[in-house]
């Protein structure tokens, strides 16, 4: 049976076939697990595969399907970033610190996809505590890019992006603090959306930077991303930073085309530091938009957006330095217990449990918050953050979307930037401003450069995810980039 299932299709096609009874959720889950397991030696997209959970969820989905119930996610296999708490399934944050940590509850997002009938295939790989842009900073080893196994998939949600790009699972969840969904989506040639800050609950999501983190979907097309977002979005009484804004049908803009779409293209995002191949692909995409009725304005500016990167590297590490303080070996997780004093044990636990990038950011944040430096660093960063937010508001008052590349380059080689943190940080140059401003943003497949995928980045007004998905959907009617598929070596 599993041989007859076409696993290369988007989730909404699976959903239709499941409803039609062409195959069951169980056979789909089995086929998916088989393919994922076969791909793992090349990709290493997962930290934990959850066969047992998946088959149980598939059985439950089949019951709902037989009863004619269920929605777009019922019976659909999904990968979940290993930063999202799953009850009874270890949640490591790709850290030695949490290697053996099993949450006692599901995060709100996982609870919602389970209620919707999704089938969790496994917990995907990431940079430790979501700190990184290549998934190389995982205590469990790096994930490989399915387009070129010598290259990184991007990060931090690299496992979630790679497994969808490789058609292991049709859907996955990531988190995005500075580009951790959009940049790997771009580098792997799929769609990835960072919702507006406050759109999706963070409850139960291992915190990196609380004022920036958002959970979001990866998918092969706009419809899949819209459906998954529709399930996970919404106010959560357990997360006071979620907004009580109604959740629309995120496909509401589909079919409207690109006519009249006001696209702002800040020239600063097409300047220095951008690879030529990426620039060409983006210019070509802009051409397609323009030729199909979009109004492109290259005069828009976001003067303070250039400061977004330094602002981010003050605010995110500051929050992280506090968020990660709980990992002290006293309550759970990795614990060094042979010290002479509790202080020494806490210190050795943290020294041994955290990887170098995490330590770097904790130190950076601790420094930025220290007495005497707070005003010059953290407070100033918050002020610039307000400026950036206002500039986005102004730019989006007469534009529907702000367009840029998602990443300045295509997927780079494993190890290439590992010893150069600053070069690594520059990967998120175009994605960070949307986190700083809190806006919704999406990365869409928009061509290739030297055989590697290029992502087009659209940032929109807060809570206007529908508009971004509408534009992505319209663009996909005109191009076939989103259907391109990497060919993994035979396994």
């Amino acid at each position: 049976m599993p041989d007859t299932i076409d696993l290369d299709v988007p989730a909404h096609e699976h959903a239709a076939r499941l409803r039609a009874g062409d195959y069951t959720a169980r056979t789909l889950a089995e086929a998916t697990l088989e393919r994922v397991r076969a791909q793992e030696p090349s990709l290493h997209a997962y930290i934990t595969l959850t066969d047992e959970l998946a088959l149980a969820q598939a059985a439950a989905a089949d019951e709902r399907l037989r009863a004619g119930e269920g929605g777009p996610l019922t019976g659909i296999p999904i990968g979940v970033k290993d930063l999202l708490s799953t009850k009874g399934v270890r949640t490591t944050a790709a850290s030695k610190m949490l290697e053996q940590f099993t949450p006692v509850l599901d995060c709100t997002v996982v609870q919602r996809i389970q209620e919707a009938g999704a089938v969790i295939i496994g917990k995907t790989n990431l940079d430790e505590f979501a700190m990184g842009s290549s998934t190389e900073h995982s205590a469990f080893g790096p994930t490989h890019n399915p387009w070129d196994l010598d290259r990184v998939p991007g990060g931090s949600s690299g496992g979630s992006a790679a497994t969808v790009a490789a058609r292991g699972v049709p859907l996955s969840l990531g988190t995005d603090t500075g580009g951790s969904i959009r940049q790997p989506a771009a580098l792997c040639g799929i769609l990835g959306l960072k919702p507006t800050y406050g759109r999706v609950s963070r409850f139960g999501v291992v915190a990196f930077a609380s004022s920036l983190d958002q959970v979001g979907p990866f998918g092969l097309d706009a419809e899949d991303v819209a459906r998954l977002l529709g399930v996970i979005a919404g106010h959560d009484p357990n997360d006071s930073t979620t907004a009580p804004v109604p959740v629309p049908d995120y496909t509401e803009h589909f079919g409207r085309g690109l006519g009249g779409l006001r696209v702002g293209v800040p020239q600063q995002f097409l300047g220095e530091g951008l690879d030529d191949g990426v620039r060409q692909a983006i210019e070509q995409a802009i051409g397609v938009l323009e030729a199909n009725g979009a109004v492109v304005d290259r005069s828009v500016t976001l003067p303070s957006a250039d400061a977004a990167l330094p602002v981010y590297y003050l605010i995110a590490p500051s929050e992280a330095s506090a968020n990660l303080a709980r990992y002290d070996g006293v309550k759970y997780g990795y614990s060094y217990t042979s010290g002479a004093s509790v202080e020494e044990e806490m210190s050795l636990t943290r020294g041994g449990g955290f990887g170098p990038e995490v330590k770097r950011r904790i130190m950076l944040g601790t420094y930025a918050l220290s007495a005497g430096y707070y005003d010059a660093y953290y407070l100033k960063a918050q002020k610039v953050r307000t400026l950036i937010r206002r500039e986005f508001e102004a730019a989006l008052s007469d534009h529907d979307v702000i367009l840029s590349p998602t990443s300045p380059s295509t997927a780079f080689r494993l190890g290439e930037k590992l010893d150069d943190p600053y070069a690594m940080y520059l990967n998120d140059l175009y994605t960070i401003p949307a986190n700083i401003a809190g806006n919704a943003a999406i990365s869409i497949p928009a061509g290739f450069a030297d055989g590697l995928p290029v992502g087009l980045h659209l940032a929109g007004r807060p809570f206007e995810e529908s508009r971004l998905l509408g534009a992505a959907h319209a663009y996909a009617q005109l191009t076939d980039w989103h259907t391109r598929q990497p060919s993994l070596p035979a396994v």
Partner: protein
Amino acid sequence: MTTATRTDYEVVVGVEVHVQLKTRSKMFCACPRDYFDTEPNTHVCPVCLGMPGMLPVINEQAVAFTILAGLALGCEIPDYSKFDRKNYPYPDLMKGYQISQYDQPLCVGGALEIEVAGDHRTVNLERIHLEEDTARLLHRDDGAGGYSLLDVNRSGVPLMELVTKPDLRSGAETAAFLRKLRQILRYLDISDADMEKGSFRFDVNLSLRPRGEERLGTKVELKNMNSFRAAQRGIEFEVERQTAILEAGGTITQETRGFVDATGETASQRSKEEAHDYRYFPEPDLPPLQVSRETVEELRARLPELPDAKRERFERDYGLTHDEAIALTETRERADTFEAAVDASGDRKYARAAAHWFMGDVTRHLSDLGPEAELSDSKVTPAHVGDLARLVEDGTITGSTAKDVLDAAFETGEMPAAIVEARGLRQVKDEGAIDEAARKAIEANPKAVADYRSGKEAAIKFLVGQVMREMRGRADPAGATEALRRHLDGGA
């Protein structure tokens, strides 16, 4: 040779008080707040255990309680307040930071007026803010080396911190301030404010300076005081210790000292103030608190009558003395009981009598029931006391009978009027009966009669007592005195 002039030093004291609020649930999660006498680690959840990814949700009741305290103490309640993270590593701190309030507390300023030995003083407040309590570390030593156990039930209990300005000038004033503060918190019914249970804890900051000097001296922080008396003793010990050092030409070390109850002395805990850098920053998991004026006014309307106002009203409306009014407004329950008794008596003219009985025999009876017994723990109700006050005041029974009636009421729960009727205890004003008893008393006590006649006026009281005894306490004492004098003086 120099002339040594003894410098007169003034002690400058400020206090920080931590008060656990009597909310239903904890500060940021749904766990029950009350952890007293609970099995360790039973009132816990992933949020107050600091599990990865857990988020706080503000307890609105705790915010309301803190604003109530602020309003009762005359604080300003700003429109905008926020929570901050206070970062410090310690095993009792589940998240590695405490959610507290740094630069924008819920309540700003305010003051509390205290009375010490008849003098009134105003103690200004710096602020009141809201935070969460930590877990409890229980240190053990089984002989093979010490270890610590962690009880997380206390983690996340709402904690209100009140900080005064350095306005206190003695141990007695500090104790008076703390007593008054606790009384108000209990009036507001926002905290048990029980030092033994740890729901009312305080630290003292103090320094000495030559009287007249503006500049503050070196600050010493004083901890481990578990009673108001300990606060007073601790401060007084420090004043003596520091005065001796200063007079010997020494300097005071800035440090934290612990009060040792057994010796009444203080001992250095941390000789050098550790360079604490709490790296406060706004709590990103919580939106700022917008406190609307409507909310503030709604809370203000909920404020009960506070001790000072109640005391003044008792003095004014019931004609009580200052001391009586203070005693009867000590707790809200006591004041309510007193007023219920006055109501039950039928007329405010019985109020002082009711006060007299409450402060005397009723209190004695209650102390027999237990150290913290209230009237509600006995068979006697406010109506009993009101009834008794009326019976005594309108002359139905004598004071001496009243004591017996109260005893009976505590025993049986019967109303005093019913007891008086059932036992025939009405005061006897029958002159014939009294006269007869007076005659017998004179006959039976020649020595007292002789004493009286030799000018010892006090002897008459003894003889009145004898008349009362003869008449089982029911005699009108004035009538008895009159009858005795008639016989003694008339027969001279």
